[in-house]
């Protein structure tokens, strides 16, 4: 059976947004900086609510930030 996983482009969009810091993004989304670190490293899949908050803070649509892809 093919396995799927959530991947994200948070780091790329954050850096494209005037080099927003992890702390700033964390503050905008109401999470700790360590959660942003875990998300960018692909170690944590956020709740739907946090995913929307992240996309909004980065000024992108949800599907531009998160992908549900086949695992390599």
């Amino acid at each position: 059976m093919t396995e799927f996983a959530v991947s994200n482009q948070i780091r790329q969009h954050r850096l494209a947004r005037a080099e927003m810091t992890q702390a700033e993004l964390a503050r905008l989304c109401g999470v700790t900086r360590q959660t942003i670190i875990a998300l960018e490293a692909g170690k944590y899949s956020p709740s739907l609510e946090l995913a929307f908050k992240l996309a909004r803070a980065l000024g992108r649509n949800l599907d531009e930030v998160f992908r549900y892809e086949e695992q390599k």
Partner: protein
Amino acid sequence: MSSIARWAWVLLVLELLGAMAGLFAPHERVWGIDLGATGTVVFGFALWVGAWLFARHPDAIFPPEWSIAERRGWAGLLFLTLVFLNFARFMGAIADLDIPPVSMRELPSRHFLSNLFVILIAWAVVADTLRGPKSELVELDERDLRMQRLADHAGDWALTLAVIAVVLLLAFVPAQRLAWWLMPLIAANMLIGLLIGRSFVEHASLVMLYARERR
């Protein structure tokens, strides 16, 4: 490793040595020195200096990927170990009594309660210090709460298994072999021990879950 982190490790080792001396040193003086009292003073001194050092350089001591909840988890594990050691020493002291205690006044608890008081106060101070700068508003988020929930489950499982083990002991071991353990005051203290064990498993699971997520 930065020099501040090295100092933090030295202070942690001093705290542990001081705590061990405070908990386990003999009552008799060694070369005129009361090792227990000296250990308690060393523990307190290293703890306050460590708290001050952390307040000034929070990110130099812990890795940046460790959230406040994870830092508190490690502190909790450390202090619960001390609580557990103090409890084990207390139970050892009860076992050494010639006549098993039948009332609270007969328990050799004064020394152990004062140790427990020092440990709990120190834990509260460290947990508060680990909160970090007041400007950092978010202390717990959904990831931390998820970890906390999983660790809670691990603690509940451990407690359930321990209760099943006690039930099996009571069912299958002859009553005369359990006579000492079944005296009301001993049994009451063992129940406290189960709760300490549950909390220990919970904290150990918490720090393991954070470490596993990073791998």
